[in-house]
C-alpha cells in the first residue's frame, strides 16, 4: 500500500520531524543547548571565581586589564558571573517546573477525570492559589523561610501550578468522553490505567508546550525574585547580578546587560522551542 512519507511512524516521530523542519524552533534548541553547555562546562574553560574581587570596580569591557565583560560595582568579573549564574537559574526553574508538573497534572487529571464534587473541591483549591498574586505569594514564602535556592524553587513551583492544573483538567474533560477511552473502560481497564496510560499520553502535547513556556517563565520569575534580593546570597544568579548592580548600572551598562542577555536568550530559547512544539503537535500542519 502506498503511504505518504509524512504518514509513517508513530505520532511522536511525526512531531519530531515537524519540529526539526521549523528553523526558529531548531535555533531555540541550539541556543538552549549552548546555554546549558555553558552552565555545565563553562567554568572549566573560564575558571574565574565569580565572587572574587579581581580588579577595579566598574571597568568596561576592553579597558586595560579588564575581563571580557568588564567588572561589576565591587570589581567582580561579569563574564564569570554570566558563566556560573546560569546553574542557579536553571536549577531553580527545573525544580519549580517539576513541582508544577507533579501538583498541576495530578490535580488537573483527578478533577477532569472524576468530575462532580472531586472536581469542584480541587478546582476551588486551585483557584485559591490562582487568585494569589504569584510574585507576592512567592516573596512571602521566601521571606518566611531562609532564602535558599531550594526555597526559591519551591516558592516558584507553588505559585505557578494552577495554570497547568486547569490545562490538564481541560484536556481530560475533552478526552475522557472520546470513544477510545470508553473502549478502554469497556475492556475493563482500571481508573488508574485509563488516567495514566490512555488519557494522559494523549493530553501530553499541549502540556509539553505549556511546560516549555513555564520553564522560561520560571527563569524570569527567579530573576525577578533575585533582583528584589530574594535569593540565596551565596548562589550567584543572573537576576541577582542585575539586582545588585541596579544602583550603579548607569555608570557601567555591561554590569546588567550581559546577565540580562543571558536571561533573555534562555527565555527566548524556551519560547521558540515551545512554539515549535505547538506547531509540531498540530496535526493540521502536518505534511506541509
Amino acid at each position: 500500500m502506498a503511504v505518504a512519507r509524512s504518514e509513517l511512524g508513530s505520532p511522536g516521530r511525526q512531531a519530531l520531524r515537524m519540529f526539526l523542519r521549523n528553523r526558529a524552533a531548531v535555533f531555540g534548541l541550539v541556543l538552549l543547548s549552548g546555554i546549558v553547555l555553558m552552565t555545565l562546562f563553562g567554568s572549566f574553560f573560564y575558571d574565574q571565581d565569580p565572587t572574587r574581587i579581581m580588579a577595579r570596580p566598574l571597568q568596561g569591557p576592553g579597558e586595560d586589564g579588564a575581563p571580557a565583560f568588564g567588572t561589576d560595582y565591587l570589581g567582580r568579573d561579569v563574564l564569570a558571573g554570566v558563566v556560573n549564574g546560569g546553574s542557579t537559574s536553571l536549577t531553580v526553574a527545573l525544580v519549580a517546573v517539576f513541582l508544577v508538573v507533579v501538583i498541576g497534572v495530578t490535580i488537573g487529571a483527578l478533577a477532569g477525570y472524576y468530575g462532580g464534587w472531586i472536581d469542584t473541591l480541587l478546582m476551588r483549591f486551585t483557584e485559591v492559589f490562582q487568585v494569589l498574586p504569584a510574585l507576592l505569594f512567592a516573596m512571602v514564602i521566601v521571606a518566611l523561610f531562609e532564602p535558599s535556592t531550594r526555597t526559591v524553587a519551591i516558592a516558584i513551583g507553588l505559585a505557578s501550578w494552577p495554570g497547568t492544573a486547569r490545562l490538564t483538567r481541560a484536556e481530560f474533560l475533552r478526552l475522557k468522553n472520546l470513544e477510545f477511552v470508553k473502549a478502554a473502560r469497556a475492556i475493563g481497564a482500571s481508573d488508574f490505567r485509563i488516567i495514566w496510560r490512555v488519557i494522559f499520553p494523549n493530553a501530553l502535547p499541549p502540556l509539553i508546550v505549556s511546560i516549555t513556556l513555564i520553564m522560561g517563565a520560571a527563569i524570569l520569575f527567579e530573576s525577578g525574585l533575585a533582583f528584589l534580593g530574594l535569593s540565596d546570597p551565596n548562589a550567584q544568579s543572573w537576576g541577582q547580578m542585575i539586582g545588585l548592580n541596579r544602583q550603579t548600572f548607569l555608570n557601567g551598562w555591561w554590569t546588567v546587560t550581559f546577565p540580562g542577555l543571558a536571561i533573555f536568550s534562555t527565555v527566548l530559547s524556551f519560547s521558540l522551542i515551545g512554539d515549535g512544539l505547538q506547531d509540531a503537535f498540530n496535526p493540521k500542519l502536518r505534511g506541509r
Partner: protein
Amino acid sequence: MSAGTPLVEVRDLCKHFPVGAGATVHAVENVSLQVGRGETLAVVGESGCGKSTLAHTMIRLHEPTSGQVVLDGVDISGLGNRALREHRAKMQIIFQDPFASLDPRRPVGRAVAEPLLIHKIAKGPDADEQVADLFTRVGLEPDMMRQFPHQFSGGQRQRVCIARALATRPELVIADEAVSALDVSIQAQVINLMMELQSELGLSYLFISHDLAVVERMSHRVAVMYLGQIVEIGPRSAIFENPEHSYTQRLLDAVPIADPRARRDRPLLTDEIPSPVWAAGTSPERVELREVAPGHLVAAEG
C-alpha cells in the same frame, strides 16, 4: 430464540440524565428485552431515540438509573467496580466511529493486546501470538500489528476494533452503529465478517442501527425504539413483513426503494420527534406491550 435461558436479560432498564434545574432527559425508559445465545437482536430507531444510550447503559458505560441487566445469570447492574471489571470480559462493544475508537498514540497490536493483559488471559509472546491470531481471524495481516491507527482505512480500523472486542472471548458483542460510518461496499464486508464470527464463535450481538437494510440482513429479531421505549419487538420477518405499530410502519416506509415504479405513496415521517425532556417528578406514560403473535410484542396505541 435458542433454547434455554437467554444470555442477556434486560428488565425495566431506565437511564435518565439531568439537564439544568428540575428537568430530566428520559433517554431510556423501562426497556425490557432478551438476547439469546448466538442470536442477533437489532435495535432500530431514529437518531436520539436512546438506542446508543441503551447499549452503553447495558454494559455500564453509563450507570443505569434503575432496572437490571442480567448477563449469564449475574445481575451486572449492581456489581461493584472490581467485580464489574471482571465481568466486562463477557461483554464487549464496537463503536460507530472507527477513527475515534482507537487510541491514536498506540500501535493497533497493542490496542488488541490490552484486553488480554488486563484480564490476564495472556502476556508476552503468548499475547503477541493471540493478537496475530485475532488479526488473521478478522482479515488483517498479522504484520500490521506495529502500525498506528492513522495508517489504516476506516474498514481496517473497524476490523481492529472487532479484533479488540473479541480478544476477551466475549459472549455478547454490542455493535453500536458499527458499520454506519463505513462505505457501503466496506459495510457489506464487515457485516459478512461479523456474521461469520457469529457462526464460528457462537456470539450474541446487540446490533444498534438505523439502517434497516443492514438490520434485515444481520438480525434474527428486531426491537424498535421510540423516545426511549421499545414500541415493537419480534422476529425479523414479523417486523419487516407485518409491522403492527404505526411508528414501525412509518420507519419502514422511510426506506428508499431504488425502483421508481415500486414507489409507495404512504406519507413519510416528517414531524419532529417529541422531546424526551420531562420536568422533575413527571415521566412519560409507560408503554404496555401486548403479544400479537408468538414472540411479537407491540405497544398499544391510543
